[in-house]
């Protein structure tokens, strides 16, 4: 029973990682860049949600919507100002720019909202659901449910809509997509918008589970989710889900049964082992070498 309850907690944490990992994986799939600033978009989302819920006293759903809109705008603006001019530049230049954006957001947040931690309000009742001796917090259920809804919506969007197929086309071959009349720049902006919007949802879930809001809140979940995205095969949306869930479960189980301090060692160790067996992640595309 204790194992099952740990497993569910792991699924809850994994759901948060999965939603963040979607942002990494979508941006990588289409813009081929490692967006190191994604974790800090989460942090901004957390602050927006915090102020919307406490200072302006908005109810939960509008509060989350405000955070989603705020993060979407932030994502698009950052893409326009910092990444778009570097479309033709080397991937390392883009990486350094993303790091610059990350520093900027972290220090900006520190200036605006100070480094002292803020307590995120409880978003739903702290009760638990009991199923035959197994007790699950409502919050965990809500987190998992949100992840499922996000996943289903995103999969439908990518596979069934015209814009979704345009996105897939761009990730396959940008040049060919452009010849087919797809506005590649618009698609890239849209990808950043979706990824950042998801970051806001992840921020609310993250802060509901770990209720302290600080300017560096996003960096560790960001790195973990990035690991999750690579785990599942970066660029693959089902891979992000699988990677996120696995990472969450491994982290919680190793905390529960092996060592709290060494859980990060185990998480990163598993990543390395998986990449050695499957060099492009669990569900990643196989790289073929052309001679």
């Amino acid at each position, binding site marked *: 029973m204790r194992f099952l309850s740990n497993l569910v907690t792991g699924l809850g944490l994994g759901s948060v990682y999965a939603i963040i990992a979607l942002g990494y994986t979508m941006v*990588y799939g289409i813009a081929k860049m*490692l967006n*190191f600033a994604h974790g800090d978009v989460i942090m901004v989302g957390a602050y927006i949600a915090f102020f919307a819920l406490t200072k302006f006293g908005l109810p939960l759903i509008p509060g989350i919507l405000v955070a989603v809109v705020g993060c979407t705008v932030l994502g698009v603006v950052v893409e326009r100002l*910092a990444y778009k*001019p*570097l479309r*033709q*530049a*080397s991937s*390392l*230049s883009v*990486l*350094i*720019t993303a*790091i*610059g*954006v990350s*520093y*900027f957001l972290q*220090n*900006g947040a*520190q*200036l605006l909202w100070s480094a002292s931690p803020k307590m995120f309000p409880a978003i739903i009742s702290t009760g638990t659901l009991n199923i035959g001796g197994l007790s699950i917090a409502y919050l965990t259920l809500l987190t998992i449910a949100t992840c499922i809804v996000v996943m289903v919506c995103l999969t439908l969007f990518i596979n069934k809509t015209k814009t979704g197929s345009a996105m897939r086309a761009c990730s396959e071959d940008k040049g060919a997509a452009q010849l087919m009349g797809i506005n590649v720049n618009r698609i890239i902006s849209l990808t950043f918008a979706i990824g950042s919007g998801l970051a806001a949802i992840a921020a609310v879930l993250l802060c509901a589970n770990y209720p302290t809001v600080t300017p560096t809140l996003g*960096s560790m979940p960001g*790195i973990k989710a*990035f*690991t999750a995205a*690579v785990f599942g095969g*970066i660029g693959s949306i089902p891979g992000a889900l699988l990677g996120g869930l696995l990472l969450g479960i491994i982290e919680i189980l190793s905390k529960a049964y092996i*060592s709290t*301090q*060494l859980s*990060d*060692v185990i998480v*990163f*160790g598993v*990543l*390395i082992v998986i*990449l*050695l067996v499957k*060099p*492009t*992640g669990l569900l990643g595309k196989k*790289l073929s*070498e052309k*001679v």
Partner: protein
Amino acid sequence: MKKENKGIIGYLFNNRHRSRTISYGMVIIAYLILEAMLRTGNLSNLFLGLLVPATCYLVAAIGLNLNVGVSGELNLGQAGFMAVGAFSGVCVSGVLAGSVPAIPRLIIAIIVGTILTALIGFLIGIPVLKLQGDYLAIVTLAFGQIVMNLIMNLYVGLDSSGLKFSFVQANFTLGEGGKFLINGPMGATGTERIATFTAGVILVIIALVIVYNLIYSRSGRAIMAARDNRIAAESIGIDIAKTKMMAFVISAALAGAAGALYGLNYSTMVASKFDYNTSILILVYVVLGGLGNFNGTLIATVVLFLLPQLLRGLQDYRMLIYAIILIVIMLVTNNELLKTKVASLRGRKQKAKA
């Protein structure tokens, strides 16, 4: 055709030697000026404390440039290697504290730190170098975090029965008169500060000698060939795995040497100092300096290391401005319009010369 200059100046500034002459020259001149200021007491306390760390970052950045610039493999775990060097150096110095005077002890600590880091670099390199591109980068990041987390849980102590270490605090007891060398998350405490600026500068020069001799040698050209075209390089008989490993291990070893010096410059040192932010900081130095360009690395490291200190007057805004400077530099140096402008200006200059 340009006429080759003869004599010693011609030798120092010909195509083969120009960049190293400039590198050594910059380091030696900077050292002489700073040492003179140091002797006459013209250096503020703030800068005094920055001298040794600056040389440490220089050595680590030179090493990283060998890996990222020359070998073309993105490494996000350089700080992990620095951590290995730092904590092994601290341990060695702690063990030898009573019996060996400071300067030989510093040298031994750096050598042990370097060798141990090279060994760990080799072990990590075996799995890492099987991967390519962004996957390789994320695995180096993972290893960096693993190393940092392991050291945060490492307990090393010295008592009458000898050197003891453990990863579990509960299993760790020291005998009468024993002392901790590394105390888990508290890190190394009570380290004697034996690092000196002169040692740092010598280390920078050694690092430069190593990388310049490597990149102009047969092995160095093999490393660059493997970077530029893996398959073509393989087809002419270059052992890709071996060349990549050489660059990776030397890069790690330099980071280890830098770490050992860094660790012995502070009386307390925690492992979390060497998280991925530090790796990224060093990567920023290398990329802004120019990949494969060691003069660029020297200048960029010193400027970017000092920049936050020079911006101190702006107080809270300094890191914000640092971030903006970073983004603007990237946008400006990658601006197509500006690039063609610079190229045409250069072309005109060369025409004028001819």
